[in-house]
């Protein structure tokens, strides 16, 4: 049973094309708004413009995790490979965004607070998420049986996801109990234009996530199809017993 979406050529994948088009358009608009529309922040200056992509990628990093959590639950209930594919694709795409979050966070912290790393609560949670994503990948790579790999990954995705909010609370309380001078003066003068730019950035990154997720899912399905074809080829006419 070869999936319909796999056999279609990339140019025939209408949803994929639409998503790619939409995300390109949104990303271009977002970049334009970040540099031309959003006002220059008073205290931090132009450096603050990294904020729009930083927050948007953090959101997608978390959202990707949520999708993995959901597909893990559905996979355990149905046992269908397609949900496993969604989970693993979402982790890989999410990992890209969470790396971007941590890197842009550090780049922003340097000029704003004078140091690359301040253990700022949200940034710390993002780096914990980054480690969980990496652990998820290592787990998958370390299991031979595909069925077991899918099952374990689903369980890990679920357990890991439920600890993230608790980590968030823990790190936040910990940091508020020991007030940090560096992060204390974070007050940013937020204007409506900034909010609008942020929303457009978030929409842009979310559609970009959807585009990448779809392509990653297609790639995995194509791999599955290839494995099946190879198996059929190996079994071939000689071992298949079709001599006559």
């Amino acid at each position, binding site marked *: 049973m070869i999936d319909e979406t796999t056999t279609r050529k990339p140019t025939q994948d209408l949803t994929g094309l639409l998503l790619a088009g939409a995300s390109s358009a949104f990303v271009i608009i977002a970049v334009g708004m970040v540099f031309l529309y959003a006002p220059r922040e008073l205290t931090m200056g132009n450096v603050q413009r990294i904020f729009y992509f930083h927050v948007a990628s953090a959101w997608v990093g978390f959202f990707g995790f949520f999708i993995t959590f959901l597909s893990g639950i559905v996979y*355990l209930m149905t046992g269908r490979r397609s949900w496993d594919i969604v989970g693993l694709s979402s982790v890989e795409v999410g990992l890209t965004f969470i790396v971007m979050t941590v890197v842009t966070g550090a780049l922003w912290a340097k000029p704003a607070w004078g140091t690359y790393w301040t253990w700022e609560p949200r940034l710390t949670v993002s780096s*914990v998420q980054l*480690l*969980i994503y990496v*652990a998820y990948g*290592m*787990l998958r790579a*370390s*299991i*031979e049986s595909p069925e*077991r790999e899918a*099952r*374990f990954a*689903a*369980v*890990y995705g*679920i*357990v*890991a996801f*439920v*600890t993230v909010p*608790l*980590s968030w*609370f*823990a*790190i936040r*309380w*910990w940091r508020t*109990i020991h007030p940090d001078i560096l992060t204390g003066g974070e007050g940013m003068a937020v204007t409506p234009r900034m909010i609008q730019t942020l929303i457009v950035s978030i929409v842009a990154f979310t559609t970009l996530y959807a585009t990448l997720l779809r392509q990653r899912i297609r790639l995995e399905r194509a791999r599955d199809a290839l494995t099946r074809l190879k198996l059929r080829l190996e079994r071939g006419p000689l071992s298949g017993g079709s001599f006559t």
Partner: protein
Amino acid sequence: MSFLRKVRAIIGKDITAELHTKEMVSAMLVFSALAMLIFSFALDLRGAMAEAAAPGVLWSTIAFAGTLGLSRSMAREEQSGCIDGLLLAPTDRTAIFIGKATGNLVFMTVVEIALLPLFSVLFDVALIRPRILVVLLLGTVGYAAVGTLLAAIAVNTRAREVMLPVLLLPLAIPVLIGAVQATVGLLDGADWGQLGGWIQLLVVYDLVILAVSLLTFEYVVES
């Protein structure tokens, strides 16, 4: 057999095996002593510095020593084929999980009880107080529960023992922060009310992890 008797039988089996070999508890104890030594060299812990660092060092030691015990406990099941026997037996999967997790909790608690006087002497802090014991227990319950689940996963991977810390430690961060902060507070003379948030965090973590582990364990041991 009733559910509780099955759980008790599994805990009993683990304790008997441990009493014969003593490999888990002794390995965790020796490792903890070494970790303590290394921490005090690395951080140059003396006087006020030692007191301030004690809760953090205690919990890091417990976390690292815990991964040793947890992976050993599951590896023993696999090597002896005992887990297959348990799965074939007419037992609920949740009974196996609760049994294993409680066994691990017992072994970790034994190690902690041995560690506390040692810590109190070497770091010159009064750790043996009822409230600190409560925090210790709350933290260990959550850690042992999530650790048992993940050890069952890790034992079936190619990397085995290496895999468990990688999977477990990022998920144990709420426990570590909560337990360390609650212990710091108690050492500073804070009363129960001032620690409410941290205790709640530990309790919520324990409950959430127990619920998720009970729901997912059957998918981990399914063969």
